Structure formats: C-alpha cells, structure tokens
C-alpha cells in the first residue's frame, strides 16, 4: 500500500521575516500531536576564518530552489508518517541574529516529526541552490560549503 503523501506542504522563498508562532499554528492538522521546528539564525562570527560578520546576502536560483526543496519534502513524506510540512528560506540581505530558515514538520507521533525535520534540513543544506556572501568592513566573501554538511546526509542513507 502506498503511503499517503497528500499532506499540506508550504514552501516559500522570501525576503521578509517569518513568525514562528504563526507557522506552528499553520502546521497543525486534525491528527497532529507533535510539531518540530528548526529555525536557522545568522551568526555574527565566522568561526572557521575568525571573522566578524556585519551582514550577509543570500542569492538563490529561482525555480530550481523550490523544485529541489519539493523533492526533499516528498522524500520526507514517503519515509515518515507526517501531517504537514513548511519550509521558508529567506534571501537578500540579513543581519546577525536574523532568522534565515524555518523547517517545520507536524506529525501524530513525535519521533517522526523530529526525524523528518532533521532530514529535510540536512538535505536542504546540500541540495537547495542558495549561496551566502558575508560582508565585513565593505569587504565581501562568498561562504565556502561545509564538508560536514555532506557528512550529515549520510545518516539518512538506508
């Protein structure tokens, strides 16, 4: 029997901020007992290069970004029994401590919500076409990708 995959899915790429409470309410469906939210925050310090960050600008590949996130969400829906998914990713200029990404999943049971949210976030990090440039003292630097993000996806290979 095929798994039900026709759950409410919301995917937004936007400049504006998001409200975690409102998104949590939207994720609630009839049978929801658990919601897990991931919120990514812009950090003011680049640990690897020992740099302070004044701001960061995100660009993306309109159209492909949404398609890639849809693919990841579809895999999550097939793998876990969940009742709703929301992915919001901001683009444009952001400041330290700004919210940058929201991944929320609702489910009947909590472990499905935890695992699918973690799964979607890990794959988003390695597949969704976004690029960050960090700004500091009028100098800009494209952020290098993290090998550890590729590593993180390995736990989902069955």
């Amino acid at each position, binding site marked *: 029997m095929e798994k039900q995959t026709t759950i409410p899915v919301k995917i937004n790429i936007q400049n504006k901020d998001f409200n975690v409470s409102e998104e949590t309410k939207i994720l609630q469906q009839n049978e929801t007992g658990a919601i897990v939210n991931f919120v990514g925050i812009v950090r003011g310090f680049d640990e690897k290069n020992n740099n302070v960050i004044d701001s960061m600008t995100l660009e*993306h590949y309109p159209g492909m970004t949404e*398609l890639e996130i849809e693919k990841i969400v579809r895999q999550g829906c097939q793998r876990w029994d969940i009742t709703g998914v929301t992915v919001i*990713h901001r683009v444009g200029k952001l400041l330290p401590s700004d919210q940058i*990404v929201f991944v929320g999943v609702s489910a009947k049971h909590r472990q499905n919500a935890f695992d699918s949210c973690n799964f979607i976030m890990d794959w988003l990090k390695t*597949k*969704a*076409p976004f*690029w*960050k440039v960090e700004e500091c003292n009028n100098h800009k630097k494209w952020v290098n*990708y993290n090998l550890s993000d590729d590593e993180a996806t390995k736990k989902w290979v069955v």
Partner: protein
Amino acid sequence: MVIKYFSWIKEYIGKSEELIELPDDITTIAELINYLDNLNDHYKRAFVKRDLIKIAVNKTYCSVETKISNNDEIAFFPPVTGG
C-alpha cells in the same frame, strides 16, 4: 540556449545570464564547458575549479556527460551554502 551563473562564478564571468546559439558539434555539458573555457580569460578563471562546479540542466542537477540541446536552460554554480 540560456546559461545562468551564480555566486562567484557569476562574478568571475561578469554576468548572471546569457543567451548563446549552441554550436552543432557541442552535445554535452563537458563540451560546452570546453567551449566557454576557450572564449576568454573570464570563463577560464571561472572554470579552473571545474570539478567543484555544480551543473543543472532545466533546473535539475546533472553531470558533465549530460546531453544538451539548444532549447535547454543550463546553470553553473558552486556548492550550495544555504540554511
């Protein structure tokens, strides 16, 4: 054919998008990269780290062996860094 460039590749090449007429003898992404690489130093610089560069054809990830035609939208970009 539309070619899109993102992140530092866009900056090296100096444009985010261009329209080219695909020469008849170019049938794969690998051949397209060689073609662009020979146009001028900007492309050459962008494609130096070509093993690192990600490729999409019609907004789907693909490899250098992927067959392409003049109606395709190609994109070249570095590994992604969102989230």
